[in-house]
């Protein structure tokens, strides 16, 4: 290729171009050099610190056998734990005060057990009693159907009943129908038939069902 005179002339021109003076601007070069040296120092420091640490570890490992090293390590750990626990014992009051100041004081809501669990059981017991006692109050009752609904609700859902009972006792009293002399087949309220005398043993008493 280079035998071609044209190619050789191109190469000669290129070699002349090689000597152009597009030099590194001095201010740019100085700035770049400074940055480079800073980075070199940083890298060298990091590497030097790492190497120093490695040398220390290597030196320690060379003097002490592995078994002794393990024992030394265990003894060191035990000593540290003992020291810390002793210091904690001596300064336990200060530590307690410090913990009290540092840690947030526990809120009242966290200490009191959740009210939902405790309130459910009494409400379900109460929900039965007012309906029974309400029947004895002869206050005005809007419709018997309401009473039935309330009773069915009390059987099915204790929460609804508790909310109703807590909202006001007037609804329960008003929901019971007027007895009109007939209290129904309630335990202890049903009129007992007269006990048969000895003479009337043969008379059959109708069962209430």
């Amino acid at each position: 290729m280079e035998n071609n005179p044209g190619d050789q002339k191109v190469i000669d021109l290129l070699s002349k171009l090689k000597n152009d003076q597009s030099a590194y601007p001095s201010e740019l070069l100085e700035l770049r050099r400074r940055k480079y040296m800073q980075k070199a120092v940083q890298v060298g420091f990091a590497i030097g610190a790492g190497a120093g640490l490695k040398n220390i570890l290597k030196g320690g490992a060379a003097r002490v056998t592995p078994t002794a090293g393990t024992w030394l390590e265990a003894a060191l750990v035990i000593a540290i734990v003992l020291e810390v626990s002793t210091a904690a014992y001596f300064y336990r009051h200060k530590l307690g005060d410090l913990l009290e100041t540092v840690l947030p004081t526990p809120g009242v809501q966290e200490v009191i057990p959740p009210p939902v669990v405790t309130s459910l059981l009494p409400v379900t017991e109460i929900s039965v009693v007012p309906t029974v006692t309400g029947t004895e109050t002869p206050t005005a009752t809007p419709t018997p159907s309401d009473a039935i609904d309330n009773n069915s609700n009390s059987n099915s859902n204790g929460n609804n009943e508790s909310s109703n009972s807590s909202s006001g006792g007037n609804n329960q009293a008003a929901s019971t129908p007027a007895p009109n002399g007939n209290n129904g087949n309630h335990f202890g309220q049903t009129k007992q038939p007269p006990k048969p005398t000895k003479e009337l043993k043969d008379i059959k008493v109708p069962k209430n069902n």
Partner: protein
Amino acid sequence: MKEGVALLKAAQKLDEEALTAIFDQFAPAIYKYTLRLCHDPIVADNIVGDVFAQLLEQFAAGKGPRTNLRSYLYQTAYHLVVDRSRDSQHNAPLEVAVGIYEKGQFTPTQTQIEERVMMEALITAMNTELTEDQRHVVILRFLEDFSLKETAEIIGKEVNNIKVIQNRGIAKLRKVLGLQLGESW
């Protein structure tokens, strides 16, 4: 001052003096090479910074060049230039590359004027007519004086491939310059 392999070994141990010597020795050349490729002094300066930062990181990691530091630095610069040229195309004015001819304080002779015209034509042809590979090979071979083997290492191709690329690049330059200069040579 340490030379060659001794300098490289000292630099691998992050010897400050060796690192400084490497920078002083190669930074201007890398800058010139990068400037020829990207035509932007600021970009060239940034690439020089990246090249030497990578070198430090390689040394810190226990890696880096073992024998030919110069090739390694040019290779790093080459890859950085290629990466940047993929992101953006730089078309700097020609004066950046031929600044020497603008600074002449003397009155040029006829021969010097002709040579200057020819040089500008050559630079224009290099920037516009050659492929990326051809431009890199021509610059590394004839402006940076790398051997075929070194150029192959830097670019990451086979030596024979470099020969072909070089021949085609020179032939293209000759053709373009011949056309522009009226086939005078």
